[in-house]
């Protein structure tokens, strides 16, 4: 059977991505859009976009969108999902949004076992505001607010939020993936698919942390940025299923 290899997913609007070349957001948006179609949930999906580079996600994803204040995605999603339990509610958040200003909202949503899905894009930097240190910035990594690189004694160490969320009883499925290679992209798609399925089955809180390059603020070429993810970021944030209480979901 002939297969179209490249086609605009149904749930991607016809606008051109504003993201920088080599940025992971475009890939992740595309994966989400494909899955909304493949799982046939686009019609009942409500997305909560963040503040940050992906704040403009509503220009791309063709589903209902309710913008949350910085960091409050999980709380807004809680209100949406509790009111409309039959809909598919997911947040799309960056590392600063979810692991700094929105830590409390996220941990407690996971702990309550809110039946929502979180797409957590970790690029180790505040992208939109110009490259300041994020909670996930690696030790020694440069940022505009860590002269000489992140110094643990001064700036603290990278925070592994996914690991923390796994401790919460209400979280069901948490996986960390990356979008720096075709293989990892496929793995990311599988992970997000499972996360949505966990929600569809009403099992509880699901989250996929996606390690994503930010060539612009890392001041690297897209190729080097992809390599940096492989060689440095995955050493501190290893790719793995961090928690899976769901097992096989159909």
């Amino acid at each position: 059977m002939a297969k179209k290899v490249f086609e605009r997913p149904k749930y991607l609007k016809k606008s051109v991505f504003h993201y920088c070349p080599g940025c992971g957001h475009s890939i992740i948006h595309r994966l989400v859009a494909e899955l909304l179609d493949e799982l046939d949930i686009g019609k009942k999906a409500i997305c909560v976009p963040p503040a940050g580079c992906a704040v403009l996600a509503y220009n791309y994803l063709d589903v209902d969108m309710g913008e949350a204040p910085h960091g409050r995605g999980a709380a807004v999603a809680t209100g949406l999902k509790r009111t409309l339990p039959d809909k598919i509610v997911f947040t799309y958040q960056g590392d600063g949004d979810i692991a700094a200003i929105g830590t409390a909202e996220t941990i407690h949503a996971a702990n309550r076992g809110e039946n929502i899905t979180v797409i957590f894009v970790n690029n180790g930097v505040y992208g939109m505001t110009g490259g300041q240190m994020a909670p996930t910035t690696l030790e020694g990594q440069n940022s505009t607010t860590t002269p000489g690189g992140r110094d643990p004694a001064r700036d603290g160490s990278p925070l592994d939020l996914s690991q923390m969320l796994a401790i919460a009883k209400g979280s069901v499925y948490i996986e960390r993936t990356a979008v720096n290679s075709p293989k990892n992209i496929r793995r990311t798609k599988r992970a997000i698919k499972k996360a949505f399925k966990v929600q569809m089955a009403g099992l509880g809180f699901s989250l996929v942390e996606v390690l994503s390059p930010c060539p612009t603020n890392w001041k690297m070429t897209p190729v080097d940025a992809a390599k940096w993810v492989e060689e440095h970021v995955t050493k501190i944030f290893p790719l793995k299923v961090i928690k899976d209480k769901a097992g096989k979901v159909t």
Partner: protein
Amino acid sequence: MIGEAAVRAGCRFYAGYPITPQNELTEYMANAMAPLEDGTFVQAESELAAINMVIGASMAGARAMTSSSSPGISLKQEGISYLAAQELPAVIINTMRGGPGLGNIAPSQGDYFQATRGGGHGDYRTIVLAPASGQELANLTMTAFDYADNYRTPVMILGDGMMGQMMEPVTFPDPVDLQKLSPKPWKLDGADGRPSRVILSLLLDTAKEEEHNWKLARKYETIAREIARADTYMTQDAHLVVIAYGTAARIAKGAIKRVREIGLKVGLFRPVTLWPFPQRAILELSRFVKDFLVFEMSTGQMLEDVKLSLEGRSRVHFYGRPGGIISTPDEIAKVINSLYHRQRLELEEE
């Protein structure tokens, strides 16, 4: 009282965080929502989370409410700004206590500025209702949900701890039929057979933000025209009118009853909506009244609105007790007495 009225008004989502003196309401809502199939109660991890849950529920079309007391309301201001910007209905109850900072848990009116001037960041207003009796509290709670839906804007009920303790018989209005409420063609419930919807407040294009600001301003003008409301008591023949709201108005009314017994012609003007402020009605009174006494349980906040309303046409005096002190009617009667006699003396001299 608010809880029962809210449920009757069709409130089906409540999120809150413990803070004195308003925990009874949170506890009431927990128990009231539990048996309702479409009701949700969430004890949130913070005031911030609570107001943001309300944002989500409101986006989904629910009649949603949160409540707190002064320090907690400060935290909610972020969300209230977003509700205003995103034109989302919601009801917020502030049971004011002494402040600033942690202050104390006694009744106060120190949050008037915060409530009526927007409170959070940006160019917006919040409808603010100030009940003065149990019955009015029940009625205005129902009204608050209607205003919120009709104007797509957050509505705050500004009360204090005294109100919760009032033991007055209340007749609750009949519950609304949720099916009969106007549909919300903007809500988010999945783009099934219709174009997808976006509820946002980010307007990077300055022209668009300006347009949005003017759109909100026009809405606020309409609100000001349509709902500004005040209650008066014995103002027809009054030489002196006390202006007070909420608990302070009750105390003032007691004082006025006492001075009326000894023949002083004093009345009460009680704003029911603090924003929009019933300016026109005050200006109207200034045609006959030379002296106004503003009484607040603060160092003087509504005072500014009274002065603005009067445009310098009458004299404005002030008496305030901040910090959670509850004046007695006798105390206010004394203040009225001395002002009143000073005015009469002046008239005789003229």
